[in-house]
């Protein structure tokens, strides 16, 4: 069994749709009204009583006309949208305009005449006024209904719309039920019943005021004023109607004729019902607005935060990429409808400038954003106070450069501060002056705070990435550098060698090497490049190159160091230098010849004597271009005795500190080597490091550390034994 269609839905669906349908409605209303106007004028002129049927026809036609006007006006009102404030304002203007026109017209009409026999206009002048005013009053009622409709249907349900339609239907039916009656006759029981029934949907609709709650304080105030104004206008028209009706018959003063009733009693009733409902609604609206005013602040705060957090939820799901982040931050106030344009200026010390840069803009180009306001001054001010700056009339502020054509009415500047650090500011702009309400600013401020947090996270993430990248590169550099150090040490007849090296950082500035010079000679180099890190590593690589190529050219340590000095000095930065000790063991002669270029003195230990520090003069490499270096350089020649121990090292060994801040120093070093001298070279080295680490109490090494221990197990030098108190002689490297 087919379901019966809902009557109202059916009625709606019968209406012609689209533009053509709209035109058809307008034409139908015009034709119908013209017919009614002609009929009214005609019957008024004839002056004879009209039959009940004629009156009924006129009344039914008039109700039909009102219905057509209502539906014809629907698209125009719907197109205007559902903004309550705008709806009320437009209603006030339209209704006010209509009322003004009606008042003016009544003034011109002067006294109206009603023919008591026909209950129609008594003369042609009244007839014309009746037709025109009936049209206007009907329009007035339709405007009121259409203005209230979107407010009643705000967040509507199906039920709400049904009740609205039921209200209009009962009004129409009540009006039709009087179609047969004379204007002066009392309404019938049916009419009263229908009116009574229509009260319920009217009251229901009058309390549909949900649109009030989300309004801001200012909008509520404005709505209240508009509603009150509208109530006044409706009241005035209603008053006119009732005063006119009370005068009932005879002649009326010009401004008191209930013209629409003269035209058609049913139409008059529709107008009156509509206006009564309009008055009821506007009065409840005014009262409700009044009661809602105090709670506005709390509600505004709440909605502002909800909006901000919603936007932030989207933000936090973004990748921690700064560029993407700033785009999102600048775009969100516009997306959320808080501002018409927004941009973000960041202070990025990494860029080497403390001037804030506009990094992203939405609703405006970056160039315009820079041009419109003094970014730097505003960022500085807002970072200083950490409070938002709100410029209700942006153009009046000295920091705003926008001209009239830029449509910059109001500006909000929010600090981006997280963890005590200021990242810059978020700018939000509107074309309207005083465009930002408290809730907008609250939303923007909450948002800016969270955005700053996201920025700080992104920056931390970026730092961590950078750190990781650096660490990887350093590890790689360290690996390369490690290969610069000798991978194996040559076997030397009669000499034990033990080596330990330990960088304080990934890349060290220490270098050592051992080279077979031929004819029983071996060169041992220990060097320290001033500074650490990448630069030191470069110099170290250069030193290795010099050592590998030049060491074999000479059997004199001094000569080699002078060569190295002359080769390296031109390429060393002014503040960079290298200290080095170069010793040559001559296994056939039984000598150890050592020269020192500004380096730590070699420790020498001997069975039954010593210890000594071998510290002949010598400038560091890179301190002098050549002549002074050569002139001052000395060589120390040791005539070896079995069991002699030589310890070459870098300053990391002696500069290790304990918790009191004392250095390990030369005395402890020589004592330790002296105590350990009888052991094998590797044991001496191990013992020395244990002693040094024990002294340092586990403190982290501040400098790189390299130690080379040589032990002479060969024969004593018997060939040329000079008679000196010390076991070595000192001679200039360059005679």
């Amino acid at each position, binding site marked *: 069994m087919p379901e019966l269609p809902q009557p109202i839905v059916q009625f709606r669906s019968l209406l012609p749709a689209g533009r053509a349908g709209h035109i058809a409605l307008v034409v139908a209303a015009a034709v119908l009204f013209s017919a009614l106007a002609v009929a009214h004028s005609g019957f008024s002129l004839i002056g004879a009583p009209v039959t009940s049927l004629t009156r009924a026809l006129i009344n039914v036609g008039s109700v039909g006309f009102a219905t057509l006007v209502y539906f014809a006006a629907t698209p125009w009102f719907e197109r205007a949208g559902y903004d309550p404030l705008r709806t009320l304002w437009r209603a006030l203007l339209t209704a006010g305009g209509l009322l003004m026109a009606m008042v003016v017209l009544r003034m011109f009409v002067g006294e109206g005449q009603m023919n008591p026999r026909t209950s129609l206009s008594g003369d042609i002048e009244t007839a014309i006024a009746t037709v025109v005013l009936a049209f206007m009053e009907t329009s007035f009622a339709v405007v009121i209904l259409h203005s209230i409709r979107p407010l009643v249907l705000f967040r509507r349900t199906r039920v709400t719309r049904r009740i609205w339609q039921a209200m209009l239907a009962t009004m129409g039916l009540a009006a039709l039920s009087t179609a047969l009656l004379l204007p002066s006759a009392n309404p019938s029981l049916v009419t009263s019943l229908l009116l009574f029934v229509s009260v319920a949907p009217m009251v229901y609709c009058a309390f549909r005021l949900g649109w009030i709650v989300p309004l801001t304080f200012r909008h509520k105030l404005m709505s209240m004023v508009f509603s009150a104004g509208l109530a006044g206008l409706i009241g005035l028209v209603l008053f006119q109607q009732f005063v006119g009706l009370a005068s009932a018959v005879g002649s009326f003063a010009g401004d008191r004729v209930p013209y629409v009733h003269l035209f058609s009693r049913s139409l008059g009733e529709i107008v009156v019902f509509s206006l009564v409902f309009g008055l009821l609604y506007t009065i409840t609206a005014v009262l409700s607005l009044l009661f809602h005013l105090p709670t506005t602040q709390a509600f505004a705060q709440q909605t502002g935060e909800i909006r901000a957090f919603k936007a932030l939820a989207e933000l936090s799901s973004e990748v921690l990429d700064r560029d993407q982040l700033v785009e999102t931050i600048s775009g969100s106030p516009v997306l959320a409808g808080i501002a018409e344009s927004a941009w973000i200026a960041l202070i990025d010390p990494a860029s080497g400038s403390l001037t804030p840069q506009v990094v992203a803009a939405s609703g405006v180009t970056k160039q315009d954003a820079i041009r419109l306001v003094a970014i730097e001054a505003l960022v500085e001010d807002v970072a200083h106070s950490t409070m938002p700056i709100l410029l209700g009339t942006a153009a009046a502020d000295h920091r705003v450069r926008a001209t009239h054509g830029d449509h910059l009415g109001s500006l909000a500047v929010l600090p981006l501060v997280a963890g005590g650090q200021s990242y810059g500011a978020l700018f939000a702009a509107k074309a309207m002056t005083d465009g930002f309400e408290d809730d907008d600013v609250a939303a923007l401020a909450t948002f800016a705070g969270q955005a700053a947090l996201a920025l700080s996270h992104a920056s931390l993430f970026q730092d961590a990435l950078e750190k990781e990248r650096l660490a990887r590169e350093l590890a790689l550099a360290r690996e390369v550098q490690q290969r610069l150090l000798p991978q194996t040490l040559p076997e030397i007849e009669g000499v034990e060698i033990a080596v330990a090296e330990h960088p304080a950082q990934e890349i060290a500035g220490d270098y050592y090497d051992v080279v077979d010079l031929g004819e029983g000679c071996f060169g041992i180099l220990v060097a320290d490049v001033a500074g650490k890190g990448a630069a030191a590593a470069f110099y170290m690589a250069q030193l290795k190159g010099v050592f590998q190529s030049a060491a074999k050219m000479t059997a004199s340590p001094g000569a080699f160091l002078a060569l190295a000095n002359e080769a390296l000095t031109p390429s060393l930065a002014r*503040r960079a230098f290298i200290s080095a000790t170069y010793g040559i063991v001559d296994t056939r002669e039984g000598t150890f010849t050592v020269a020192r270029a500004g*380096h730590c003195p070699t420790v020498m230990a001997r069975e039954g004597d010593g210890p000594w520090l071998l510290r002949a003069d010598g400038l560091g490499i890179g301190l002098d271009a050549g002549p002074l270096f050569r002139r001052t350089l000395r060589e120390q020649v040791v005539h070896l005795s079995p069991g002699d121990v030589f310890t070459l090292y870098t300053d990391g060994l002696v500069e290790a500190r304990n918790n009191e801040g004392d250095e390990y120093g030369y005395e402890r070093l020589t004592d330790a080597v002296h105590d350990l001298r009888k052991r094998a070279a590797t044991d001496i080295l191990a013992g020395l490091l244990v002693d040094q680490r024990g002294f340092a109490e586990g403190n982290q090494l501040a400098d790189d550390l390299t130690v080379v221990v040589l032990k002479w197990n060969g024969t004593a030098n018997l060939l040329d034994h000079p008679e000196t108190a010390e076991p070595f002689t000192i001679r200039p490297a360059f005679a």
Partner: protein
Amino acid sequence: MSNFSVSFRHRDDICVLDLTGELDAHTAAEFEAALQKCVTEGDCKLVVQGKDLQYISSAGLGVFMAFIEPVRDGGGDIKVAGLQPRVFTVFDLLGFPLLFDILDTEDEAVARFNGSPADQS
């Protein structure tokens, strides 16, 4: 963390820099900035008062190296005074006494400026 400081004094046309604490790779920049300021302001007669200097690393020595040339080109000199033995050792090992006037007291350093001209070889 930094326990190094440098301050300026003027004795006539001589600028005295008092160094306090430890001059290492981290604090060298501070000393460098101080010397740069002197050079920029045209002060070329500089005495570095090192009696309160507890430690100097090779990076600290590098700063002396970096500035000696422009200072001498400007007709002045950097003289070092009052170093503690431990700190002097570091200067000495590298051969700094051959390049710089290193004197026991500040007065001697000032006198060296005022009396005989810097006898650098």
